[in-house]
């Protein structure tokens, strides 16, 4: 369970999050949508403790996130722009995260195979393309079988095959009860991945609605049209 109560965040004169209250039930799949600079990434970073809210409270499975870092053991995270130490190899980055999380079994093996990363594992990171780094980021997020996945633009930069693989893996995670929270600008991904959307504008929640309801209200088969229809109503 992820619970945000009246979360605000300001960067200088800009109020990025304005009293966000949100409750995400275990096993649900939610997309946070909105235009650029609407506060999507900041909201995700607040859930992870990377950015500290100015006020409000965030609890993950009942634990206030400021109390300890242990709650992050339940979370897998894919950042928007994955970046790793240039002189390490992909296999070493995987090993580093495994050691920090106390994982010893070859938990990464199936994901490396799925994302066809075997031939890239022993190359230095600086020799890897942006897409390959994104695949590595996906492996790092998925390999510990987290109960919560927080993904910032997960399919951006991935080729269609890798994007399909990632979506299949995310659906598999959902089947085993994983909570999914993501942001994306690729609207076609939304119906495949999530059941609910939250729309942010200038740091405020404009609406929260289920995907089937959005489709039903708009009589449209395209998610982008359904979204525009709902926004016009707001």
């Amino acid at each position, binding site marked *: 369970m992820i619970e945000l109560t009246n979360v605000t965040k300001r*960067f200088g004169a800009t109020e990025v999050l304005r009293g966000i209250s949100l409750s995400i039930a275990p096993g649900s799949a939610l997309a946070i949508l909105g235009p650029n600079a609407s506060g999507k990434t900041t909201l995700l*970073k607040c859930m992870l403790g990377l950015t500290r809210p100015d006020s409000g409270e965030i609890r993950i499975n009942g634990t206030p996130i400021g109390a300890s*870092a242990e709650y992050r053991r339940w*979370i897998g995270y894919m950042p928007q722009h994955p970046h790793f130490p240039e*002189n390490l190899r992909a296999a070493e980055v995987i090993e580093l995260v495994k050691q*920090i999380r106390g994982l010893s079994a070859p938990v990464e093996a199936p994901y490396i195979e799925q994302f066809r990363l075997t031939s890239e594992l022993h190359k230095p990171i600086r020799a890897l393309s942006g897409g390959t780094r994104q695949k590595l980021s996906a492996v790092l997020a998925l390999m510990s079988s987290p109960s919560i996945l927080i993904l910032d633009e997960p399919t951006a930069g991935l080729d269609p095959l890798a994007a399909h693989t990632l979506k299949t893996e995310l659906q598999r995670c959902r089947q085993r009860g994983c909570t999914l929270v993501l942001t994306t600008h690729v609207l076609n991904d939304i119906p495949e991945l999530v059941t609910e959307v939250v729309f942010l504008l200038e740091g405020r929640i404009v609406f929260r609605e289920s995907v089937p309801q959005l489709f039903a209200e708009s009589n449209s088969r395209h998610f982008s049209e359904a979204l525009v229809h709902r926004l016009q109503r707001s």
Partner: protein
Amino acid sequence: MKGTLWVLWEFQLRNALRSRWVLLYGGGLLLLTALLFRFGGTAEQVVVSLLNVVLLLVPLVALLYGVLGISSAREFLELMLAQPLQRQELFWGTFGGMALPLLLLPPLSIGIPWLVFAAGRWELLLTLSLGSMVLSLIGAAAGVAFALRWEERLHAIGVAFGFWFALTILYDGFILWAGIALRDYPIEHGLLLALVLNPVDLVRVATLLQLDAAALLGYTGAALERFAGSTLGILLAAGALALWCAFPLWLALRGFLRKDF
């Protein structure tokens, strides 16, 4: 199972030791020292030549390394912070792994040719090595603090350059100006104190005093030798150096703990 700090140090060290810049820095210092021994002669002559390199280059390299080390790793730090790690743990793991090669490279790059050429005067090597390590630590910590305070890389590099310029050139210029402007007043002790309060000057003074070069500086040199050799002088110098190491480290840690990534 290895502790988290060891894990972070190990991987940061691996990354640093494979960096071509680190290899170039260490290799360059080693080559320079070897050439100075080959063509320059005695340990004293080599130290005089190396001293300015250590005083100018070492803090500058450490500052830039600190700034670039953090500003280019921002997204990776973000990923690390999404792991079950305390911020403090991640700071010491990252800083330790980054700073260790920087601290060890100058003593090794100077020490290896020193051993090969059997130069003797080990106390000189020790002073220069400790001095370079202290300057590296101060530079790296200040660089990290600047990178955490100013998110834009060019801005942080500019501040680092300004800090280096103030420490290595402006400060001496000010002391020189004060010495000339106030020459009619008894300011020797004040100026000596001012010298001891700058880590770059402190390393310079400590090395020069071992070379007996203070004798060439006349009355001021004698006063300097007396002051630096006294218990008060040693305590002040040690205290100032400890503060110089601790303050930038504290600033960097504070910046890291408060940073919104």
